[in-house]
């Protein structure tokens, strides 16, 4: 594991002009589940259709999971009241863990005004609204427009009490667009024997489909189950009958090769925004330099905590987690596994030296046994 823990893994990659690391920030609190990202990604990369045209039995998600042909996947989770409370509880537990707050020092009264500049952060809110894991009594500081100034006799006499959570307390519908994480320590990249997977000058991880021989090790190497070998890569978007042949500009078979999101490496080289980030109507998918994405993420989660939504948490923004932090940072509203994400992923390469040591001992043991067997066997 020679890559240094610095956020930008391209540092050791000897690129003549390394760029700042690019990445996503997916804010699932404003995702409207429209799947524009799925279609834009498929349309740009000309990925084949990945479905048997049947309802999968998972609310509005008929795509299933990320795979060789689906590099963006929108998850839909319908939750009732107790799941919401459980999520708020686990979110609050995270806050109470006294996570080292990356950014403004814990103690200082951080009256940082968020980019929107409309929500001043009071000291109480900055320290996490429920100290000591107690119920979030204050129900989140009343967001400014609740205690609206009852202007010129228009509003009723008493300013309206801050309803605890303006959100519907009894039901919510989580939507989140999942994508390759482009990890700092990428399991797939490490185990790839042919060098098909490589770290680009933007710090992203891309498969070279002209090199990959489809050995499939990377599929097992990814702790998030993102990459997959395309088993039937016949490209033309399948149609029910033997439809007229697809115009030749779109027929690119990528049979038998590992495939995953390239963070639109081709677009990125021409300073274009990746197809999914450009298409996303509510910019739930934000694209930019990784550091600014992480900063926006922290700002956003702080803002949500002030609104009493303690279930908000970041996923992948911590540089010293099991994969060294990810290129795509997520803001989730529940435990990662609810979205089908691993709760504590760890790049397998982290234990590789130990594995080689154990294997070495085994090899020595085998040779020793062989030698002993022959030494003692001399008699008969």
């Amino acid at each position: 594991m020679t890559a240094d823990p610095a956020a930008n893994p391209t540092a050791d990659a000897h690129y003549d002009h390394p760029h700042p690391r690019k990445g996503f920030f997916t804010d699932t609190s404003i995702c409207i589940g429209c799947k524009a990202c799925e279609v834009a990604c498929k349309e740009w990369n000309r990925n084949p259709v990945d479905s048997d045209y049947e309802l999968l039995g998972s609310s509005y998600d008929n795509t299933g999971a990320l795979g060789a042909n689906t590099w963006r996947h929108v998850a839909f989770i319908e939750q009732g009241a107790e799941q919401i409370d459980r999520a708020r509880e686990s979110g609050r537990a995270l806050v109470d863990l006294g996570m080292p707050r990356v950014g403004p020092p814990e103690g200082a009264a951080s009256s940082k005004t968020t980019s929107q500049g409309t929500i001043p952060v009071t000291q109480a809110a900055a320290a996490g609204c429920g100290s000591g894991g107690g119920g979030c009594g204050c129900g989140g500081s009343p967001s400014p427009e609740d205690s609206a100034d009852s202007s010129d006799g228009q509003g009723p006499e008493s300013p309206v009490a801050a309803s605890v959570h303006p959100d519907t307390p009894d039901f919510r519908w989580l939507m989140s667009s999942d994508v390759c994480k482009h990890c700092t320590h990428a399991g797939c990249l490490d185990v790839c024997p042919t060098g098909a997977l490589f770290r680009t000058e933007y710090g992203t991880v891309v498969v070279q489909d002209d090199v990959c021989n489809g050995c499939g090790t990377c599929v097992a190497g990814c702790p998030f189950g993102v990459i997959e070998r395309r088993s039937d890569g016949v490209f033309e978007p399948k149609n029910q009958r033997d439809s007229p042949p697809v115009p030749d500009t779109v027929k690119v078979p990528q049979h038998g090769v590992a495939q995953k999101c390239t963070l639109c490496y081709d677009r990125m080289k021409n300073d274009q925004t990746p197809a999914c980030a450009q298409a996303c109507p509510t910019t739930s998918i934000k694209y930019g330099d990784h550091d600014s994405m992480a900063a926006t993420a922290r700002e956003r989660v702080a803002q949500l905590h002030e609104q009493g939504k303690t279930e908000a948490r970041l996923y992948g923004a911590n540089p010293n987690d099991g994969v060294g932090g990810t290129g795509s940072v997520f803001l989730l509203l529940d435990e990662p596994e609810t979205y089908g994400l691993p709760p504590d992923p760890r790049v397998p390469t982290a234990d590789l030296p130990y594995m080689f040591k154990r294997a070495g001992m085994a090899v020595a043991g085998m040779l020793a046994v062989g030698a002993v067997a022959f030494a003692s066997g001399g008699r008969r």
Partner: protein
Amino acid sequence: MSVSEYDNYRPPEEPRRKRKGKGRRRASGSAFRRGGDGSREMPMVPEPEFTSYYGRPIVKAPPWETQIGAYLFLGGLAGGSSILAFGAELTGRPLLRRNMRLSALTAASLGTVALVSDLGRPERFLNMMRTIKPTSPMSLGSWLLAYYASHAGFAAAAEVDRMTHAKLPLGPLRPVLRFIERPAAAGAAVTGAPLAAYTAVLLSDTAVPTWNAMHKDLPFVFVSSASLAAGGLAMLTTPVTETKPARTFALAGVAGELVAMHLMKQRMDPVVVEPLEQGRPGTWLTWSERLALAGAAGTILGGRRRWVAALSGTALIASSALTRFGVFQAGKDSVKDPKYTVEPQRNRLAKRRAAGIVDDSITTAG
């Protein structure tokens, strides 16, 4: 499922579109599409204690078919055979040496063919030699296999030349072959052991829950399994007079495997051990244990009688194969249920939190 009497009008519900390529099963567990295999469990209400996304897998099993399982076995067999071959050469057991060298080469070449055929793009198998990546067990393994196969090849070539009484049109090469025979055999023997062990690292260095959890002890299991396989093969093919060391080698292998397998299961997170004990892998592994014991017993008691040795040799070979396939399939099964991915990670996270390390979780509040 539905109770209306018009149901019998349901047109035959063949899937809407036949999928070209290798049948309907897709590596990424298309079982979940049918709502499990037949059992109509309600995806609406996941089990209370741990949530998952409609029961769908979180990580993906590698798209490896049975050929890779076979390669695991053949690689170990080849490695073990080279060691026995070199030992036989040193201690003057010509028959054992010849059989072992030939079997080492056949096993290695069969293994290579199996590997290449499992590739998505077999025609690009040479790309394995593109880089030497210390972080990739398969990259190092490919180089190791290349080195081993060439050396085992030279040793075996010499053997074949000797068997055909120098009729082969080698001409000037013959002295060269004679000269390099011994170092080649030595090289094959030395790299034989790593060839058996590296496949264990290949499996463990993945995110597949069961394989990853085995990474402490799997090398010992595979090495022992290789030894007993090679010993078994020796007993099967070579007259009893020369196979004394092979028998001890095999017995050591059996002992090693039993101990290692037991220790491994102890050290793994109990949840992740389940795939090893359920379904097909479960039966295979229990049978591999029985055959190993039977083989060992046969070796100890009737080791000197030819047919008993041959019989126990086959038992040992079968046991080694079953171990490899059992471990291989257990890993692939452990991916299907997200429980095996989530719960061990939850336990690991909780342990770290309990130990006061709070800054290394992927989920953060700030």
